[in-house]
């Protein structure tokens, strides 16, 4: 065979080798330490940060807003309005983490004094972290936090620019962030917030949202009270199909609905969406965090329902070491690890984000059907998301080595 001529053809390998060596010879010997693409990645996703509390304010009778800055004085990171952050609370021997939606806008995180804010309301049950935040947290305290988590944000490629937000209780927070971002001209959507509360005392950040509404005609807030409050001039009742239609002048095809609130609300809203034929792609639900009652989850074994106090032995493998800790049937594996003071990375506490991907080596574990984040192959090999997995026997798990 011949490409150009025998000598030229057979000399190819030597030719390309010589070229290579020459290119090395002519190169600079100055180390190039730059990696601008990693720099952008770090600006958006710096990982866990030390955050110092800069301000704590009351925002309703039962809620507080807590603002954080970076302890190292570096600029706060980028994120999308609607995303949540994870905070670690050192309580006694344990480190307990909780996800909180950021209630301040991403634009408030820019500049030298940029901050992020969360709102914490004291719930009726399981409120010990909420109590802790309300009573103990004060300016100057430092916590570890991971900002910019979750998928609950406006995505122009998918969502309509006409957005109706449906909020209940503390579920107003992502929309407070979005509203501020819209008012500052950083997010180009028309935002109508339907906000359900029992009484006007329960409305969180009412003043702030009213001020935004006044200065920006792209944001509209409709408070709807379910309680029997004399003198209330606004909407009364529940957020139902009729009301959703009333506030969707563009039609359900051309409106994206974002829903955030207590778990019970989701069922009613789904039903209303079905009634209105809202396309699936127009429905965005925020995950709702740790299940309050595991026995209420679909598929939880009948014979275990009155035995959720049962304490099992959980063997935790990290590297070449093993530790045995107690684990209650009614609590997630992550909760057992936290109680035992074993640090593990966990994010949404809803089984979605996958931060706490964990291998179950032996034993039986109930996986919440709401744990939609598991990969198919992971399922085949016994991986679970530990925040949404509950022991049904003594068990052995393997988790990544982490800082204490």
């Amino acid at each position, binding site marked *: *065979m011949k490409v150009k001529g025998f000598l030229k*053809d057979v000399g190819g390998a030597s030719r390309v080798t010589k070229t*290579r060596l020459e290119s090395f010879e002519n190169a600079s010997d100055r180390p190039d330490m730059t990696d*601008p693409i*990693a720099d952008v990645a770090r600006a958006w996703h710096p990982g866990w940060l030390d955050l110092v509390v800069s301000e704590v304010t009351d925002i309703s009778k039962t809620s507080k807003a807590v603002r954080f800055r970076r302890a190292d004085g570096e600029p706060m990171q980028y994120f999308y309005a609607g995303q949540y952050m994870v905070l670690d609370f050192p309580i006694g021997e344990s480190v307990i983490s909780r996800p909180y939606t950021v209630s301040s806008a991403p634009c408030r995180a820019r500049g030298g004094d940029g901050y992020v804010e969360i709102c914490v309301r004291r719930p009726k049950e399981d409120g010990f972290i909420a109590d802790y935040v309300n009573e103990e947290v004060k300016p100057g305290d430092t916590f570890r936090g991971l900002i910019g988590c979750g998928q609950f944000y406006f995505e122009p490629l*998918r969502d309509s620019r006409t957005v109706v937000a449906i909020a209940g209780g503390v579920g107003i927070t992502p929309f407070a962030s979005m509203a501020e971002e819209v008012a500052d001209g950083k997010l180009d959507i028309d935002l109508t917030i339907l906000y359900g509360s029992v009484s006007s005392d329960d409305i969180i950040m009412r003043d702030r949202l009213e001020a935004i509404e006044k200065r920006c005609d792209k944001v509209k807030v409709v408070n709807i009270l379910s309680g029997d409050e004399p003198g209330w001039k606004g909407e009364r009742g529940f957020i139902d199909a009729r009301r959703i239609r009333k506030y969707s002048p563009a039609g359900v095809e051309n409106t994206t609905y974002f829903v955030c609130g207590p778990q019970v609300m989701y069922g009613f809203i789904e039903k209303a969406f079905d009634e209105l034929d809202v396309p699936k792609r127009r429905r965005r639900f925020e995950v709702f965090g740790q299940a309050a009652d595991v026995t209420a989850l679909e598929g939880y074994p009948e014979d275990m329902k009155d035995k959720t106090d049962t304490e099992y032995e959980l063997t935790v493998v990290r590297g070449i070491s093993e530790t045995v800790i107690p684990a209650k049937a009614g609590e997630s594996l992550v909760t057992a690890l936290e109680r035992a003071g074993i640090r593990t990375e966990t994010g949404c506490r809803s089984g979605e984000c996958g931060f706490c991907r964990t291998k179950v080596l032996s034993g039986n574990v109930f996986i919440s059907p709401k744990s939609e984040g598991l990969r198919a192959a*992971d399922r085949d090999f016994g991986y679970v998301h530990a925040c949404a997995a509950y022991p049904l026997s003594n068990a052995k798990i393997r988790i*990544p080595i982490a800082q204490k």
Partner: protein
Amino acid sequence: MKYYKDHYDVIVIGGALAGLSAALMLAEKGKDVLVLERHNLPGGVATSFVRGGIEIEAALHEMMYIGDKDNRQKVGKFFDRLGIDIDWLKVPEAYHASLPGIEATMHPGLETFSKEVDAVVPGSYDKVLGLLNLCADVYSSVNELSVRSMSKAQMLLKHEAFVKTAGYSTKEVLDSFDLPQKALDLLAPYWIYVGSGFSDLPFTIYAVLMGEYVGNGSFIPRKFSHEMSLKMAEKAEEMGVQIEYRQHVDKILVKDGKACGVRTALGHEIFADYVICSAYPNTVYTKMIEPASEVPAEAIKMVNARRLSLSAYSVILILDKSAEELGIKDYSIFRGKTMDTDECYRELGTLGPYSYLTCICHNLANPDATPPGTCSFSITVLPRVDAWKTVTADDYDRVKHEIADQLVADMSEYLGFDLKDHVLECVIETPVTVARYTGMYNGCIYGYAHTMEDHIVARLQTADAEHFIDHLEFSGAHQISGDGMGPAVVNGWKAAKNVLNTMEKEAE
């Protein structure tokens, strides 16, 4: 608490395909191996993620070197040998080419492919088949020469085509076939999998590309590339390899010119006889070697001389109708407003608009890839790292969406409906995403560009001289075989073999 043994035979930095492949080969030889992976799962970009309850492939378009059950190729054989039982699905076609004046669906098989070119360009069959046979010939030589060395005279005798084409670019060899433009266009679309324009792409690489993809077809795992990564990791653990996730390695410890361990971000110092590293030599020689004085100037010159290749940008859509309902007929659509690869390569050095797009609809190889009544559709361009170096954190979101809008508009025009009307879930992956999850230098997934200046034949000849620190080996796209998931596995073997050879030599 003691997490690590006092000593390992080998520490592998990075639990992606190359690192796992190296670990598996070493474990097969009874070596005590520790793999440290920064993310919380194996695979690097060979992974998947879940959005709204739907699992989505992160990166794999088609896996090479697998082959049908009765025609297993090298990576497929390796998995079979180790009992890594992956549920491979064959990709039904090579690609649908939508090029200037051409709409043609091409299939694997050298003769089939040549016939399909001939249907578009009558009379081109013999020449096209001649070219493809040459590719297959060179490809088989590459396979043979990668396992056995021989004298120059022997090489010329037994591997004539390989030797005689080694000094030429793809363009130079294609020109010698004197093919009509449309035939050339139909032979070009796979170029993106090796990422250099034909005037600078070594023909040897083109030959491997066409020899394998057109010769043997391509495959995907049923449960996404995560199935492959996870099964490799699980097998490695079964064979005694310790894999630790979420462990970022900061430093490679070197003493008297020899790698002897690592330090992790958590501060653990771990010791071993050998280190295999998946991080780019650029990162290693400028930031990771401790003490830095162990890095010779030649190592810095080498990394400075080499040009980084491509990164990745994908818009991945989950659509709210099935592929059939939407009229999507092909697993892969390669759409080019031009098929001049040099021009396409130039465009990849910008932030768009891009005129060469590759699209994948997984459901056409794997009907159950997404829930009934939905399908996945991804649009990918592989921009050069240089283009993205200019994007600031402030600009990032805007740039990311402007490109997405262009890609989605172009493909909507081609498909005849607006993709935006059907988006159930969407994800935009960028070079920044790659950097975030894998830590790869400048988000570069393709390693160093395959060019005439950085030719694979030259890489093979100078490999020993480019070894600057004893007992430190590299594995990943930045190594000899370059980019791609199949080549990643091959790069891992090479690193493991180097370790095994040194062990043997030093034992003597």
